[in-house]
């Protein structure tokens, strides 16, 4: 037998390509995908066709223009589309910094499909959902311990919605104190997530954005200059998206409190902090965790997720209702919260994600959670050293250790080769790896943010680093390879600007595409 040599440092990958039609093109009149439960004969004879009862003006005149497709073809179509999707189960997903991509334990996916969870109606009598309420309550207790906060709501179904709920609480709180009109500003930092500024703006606040000092730390002098009797609150991620922890955070929260504002903490970047440091000791009034990030629930192409929202006892009455309470052996839903902001999502939130997070914490325990933080930080600093050794790569601001992620820069590489971070993004797909170019605005030039989390082995990290290194080499030696990427993808490059930003050409649905291509003949 000949020894098969496998020495390449990067993967010889090719993304699945099925050249799959749009589902409407699969239409075959007469086919059907599923047989529905029939109406019982006795019912039909008792009430007739049922639809005659619809007032004429409200009756649908013709059937919706949906395709007719047999079941196997529908299944095959969607399975092919799933194959053309690179989920985090398939790649070393460390290129989506700030989003904490980690291993999704399969036991949790099995547990959430228990009919005793999946087939519960949210309005069932409390006696019949004691198990579900127990999970909510027990996760609340865990979250209290992890953060130091006093009560949690799991109603917000994403970090953005949790930030919105927190901004709503800030507003309600100041209104209660008669300062609603006076306090109309919220302060944040440029390296906090965009949702912090956006959700506060939705709640009617003027946004003041602090830029960092020369070392990348939020600038305390700028904060001092920004606070006033108009300050409603301060919202910040810490560590920020640079992976830099603000060591003066307690001074920050003290300054805001002295000015009469509330401090709320975006803990989307909490993975390196579990069991290490908490929101309470840093002086925050509220915080949230993304259960789909730090607590290993899957991201599901973008939800549904959960932004677990924690508050101090002083703000409990402002939470979106209901919250779960426990008295004398019985779990119950508390709807009467005196100053409640109302609701941010219907019923109780995404229960599956609550269950997944609880299961993940129970699988790890206190020691395991701390190992998560320690290993995530170890992995990150290992990568940090390795990536800085790659030609053209850098990381602005303070030298030394970072926490769970680093915002890097290819500024030097771009200057020297013309290859941009967007070019690299596309080339990374050729190695079966996801790479994201970081949040706008690009304060860090040619940015990329890597967050290796605890889920990856040293070999996994080396694979990712090797791919970056190879692309850097290509950029210096033969940049065209990078600039013309992707080469191994499902599709070739698209013309984004022309087709997606031009109202004459954009087609958000198939019917629009059909209308426009016939009318304008844009696509032959």
């Amino acid at each position, binding site marked *: 037998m000949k020894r098969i040599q496998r020495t390449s440092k990067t993967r010889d990958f090719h993304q699945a390509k099925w050249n799959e039609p749009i589902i409407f093109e699969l239409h075959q009149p007469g086919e059907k995908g599923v047989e*529905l439960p029939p109406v019982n004969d006795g019912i039909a004879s008792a009430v007739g066709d049922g639809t005659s009862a619809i007032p004429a003006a409200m009756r649908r005149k013709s059937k919706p223009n949906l395709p007719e497709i047999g079941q196997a073809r529908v299944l095959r179509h969607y399975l092919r*589309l799933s194959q053309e999707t690179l989920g985090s*189960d398939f790649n070393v997903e460390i290129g989506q910094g700030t989003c904490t991509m980690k291993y999704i334990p399969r036991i949790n996916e099995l547990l959430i499909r228990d009919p*005793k969870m999946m087939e519960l109606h949210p309005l069932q009598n409390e006696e019949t959902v004691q198990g579900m309420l127990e999970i909510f309550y027990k996760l609340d207790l865990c979250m209290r311990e992890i953060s130091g906060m006093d009560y949690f709501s799991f109603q917000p179904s994403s970090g953005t919605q949790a930030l919105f709920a927190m901004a709503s609480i800030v507003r309600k709180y100041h209104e209660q104190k008669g300062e609603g009109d006076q306090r109309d500003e919220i302060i944040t930092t440029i390296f906090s997530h965009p949702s912090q500024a956006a959700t506060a*703006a939705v709640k009617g606040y003027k946004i003041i954005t602090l830029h960092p000092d020369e070392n990348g730390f939020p600038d305390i002098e700028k904060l001092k200059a920004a606070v006033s009797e108009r300050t409603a609150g301060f919202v910040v991620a810490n560590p920020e998206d640079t992976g830099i922890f603000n060591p003066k955070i307690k001074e920050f929260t003290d300054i805001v409190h002295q000015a009469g504002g509330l401090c709320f903490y975006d803990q989307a970047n909490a993975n390196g902090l579990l069991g290490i440091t908490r929101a309470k000791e840093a002086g925050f009034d509220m915080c949230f965790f993304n259960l789909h990030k730090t607590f290993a629930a899957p991201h599901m192409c973008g939800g549904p997720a959960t932004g677990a929202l924690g508050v101090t006892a002083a703000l409990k009455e402002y939470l979106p209702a209901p919250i779960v309470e426990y008295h004398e052996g019985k779990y119950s839903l508390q709807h009467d919260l005196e100053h409640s902001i109302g609701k941010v999502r219907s019923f109780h939130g995404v229960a599956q994600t609550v269950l997944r997070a609880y299961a993940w914490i129970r699988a790890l325990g206190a020691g395991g959670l701390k190992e998560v933080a320690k290993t995530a930080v170890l992995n990150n600093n290992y990568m940090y050293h390795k990536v800085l050794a790659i030609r053209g790569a850098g990381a602005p601001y303070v030298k030394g250790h970072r*926490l769970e992620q680093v915002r890097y820069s290819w500024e030097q590489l771009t200057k020297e080769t013309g290859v941009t971070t967007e070019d690299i993004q596309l080339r990374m797909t050729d190695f079966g790896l996801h790479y994201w170019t970081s949040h706008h605005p690009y304060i860090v030039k040619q940015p990329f943010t890597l967050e290796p989390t605890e889920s990856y082995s040293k070999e996994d990290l080396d694979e990712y680093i090797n791919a970056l290194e190879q692309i850097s080499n290509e950029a210096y030696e033969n940049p065209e390879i990078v600039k013309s990427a992707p080469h191994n993808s499902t599709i*070739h490059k*698209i013309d984004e600007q022309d087709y997606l930003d031009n109202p004459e050409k954009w087609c958000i649905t198939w019917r629009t595409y059909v209308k426009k291509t016939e009318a304008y003949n844009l696509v032959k």
Partner: protein
Amino acid sequence: MSQKVHPYIPNMVPEVQTEMLKVIGAESIMELFSGIPEELQLKGDLKLPPALTEYELRRHIEGILNKNTSTKEYLNFLGAGCWQHFIPAVCDEINQRSEFLTAYAGEPYEDHGRFQALYEYQSLLAELVDMDVVNVPTFDWGQAAATSIRMAARITGRKKVLLAKTVAPERIKIIINYGSPELEFEFVQFDTKSGAMDLEDLKEKLTEDVAALYFENPSYLGFIEAQGTEISNLLKETETLMVVGVDPISLGVLAPPSHYGADIVCGDLQPLGMHMNYSGGQAGFIASHNEVKVVSEYPSRLFGIVPTVKEGEYGFGDVAYERTSFAQRENGKESVGTQTALWGITAGVYLALLGPNGMQEVGQTIMQNSQYAAQELNKIAAVTGSRLHSSFFKEFIVDFNQTGYSVEQINHRLIEKKIFGGKDLSLEFPEFGQSALFCVTEVHTKEDIDHLVQAIKDILAK
């Protein structure tokens, strides 16, 4: 130090850690946390229950879940915003796939399938509502309604919003919190005999500073609002936008709101293939006509189809990305982040499986089953099967005022008979006294309904 390596954390292997620390040039992992001041670092361990192995974890969680009684075990007539429907197995197969389950924010080149599946969802739902634009799903119906209303306010430049008094109280809470302090809300009254909107009250409140009227059809109370065209004509006089919330599973038989003048349509996708999940199955949609001034006000992602440089390939991408808060922070249109994309893909699978005939059939079966249930309940002495005399879809009000029992008492006794009765409306709509909102769908058989009727008869006979 000898320590167990946790299955989720490969780099807990001590030798590997030593090697990595050497690369970093650090003595210990804790040294890497030196950026966190000593006084902020926790002393000692968190007080959490001990770690469980996978087998122990499964027993532990299943033990807790066993305390629940599901709608598989008891007959269920609860709806009111979360509904029990038939879910084709293919829907579950697709949304369990690792690729879709664990994907997130990839580019069109690595996540072509995700973009296509969501584009197809938009396109399939567009046919159902008969409109040209549908967004990548939002959190739930409440959020979709709240955003639709904010969009209408931005389009018209007005701040006043009218809400039908029959809108789901839960959604009203979401809408008002989401709209305040910028928007001002006022309710339009309804006829308590039919549920229909009071057009005289609407006329009175409809001034030229009203951005939008929001109502639901079928309504939260189940009745079909038949005055769509009349309402639309009134709104045109003040150039007020018509925003209508709709249960999409009704649209195989009911006219979509676009047919009677709606500018923006929203609703919940949960009926289209999502398990109830104790309310974890909710997902919102927004739809509109393809007008630049409307499309420009969507805060959420909109995927569009585009050619690639190679003939014969479909590509996809974000339409007008600069609208979003991803690109603009506080200057974006509202805010966007993780929403409910997987449920959008699942709803697409559902619509593809049912097709035009299936959507019509399911709508018709729901109408027949629910009419039968109302008719049979109405035969019970002292019970009024459908309190409102309008036609209804899926849900209807059952009036127990003459029985001498409260809804709470009746529901309690129904549970003893393994039935979840209708939602008690006595707090939300006191004008109906002791009435409940019952939900009957295609999953209910004649036997189920007869069983419910007999159970109520037995309870009232005691």
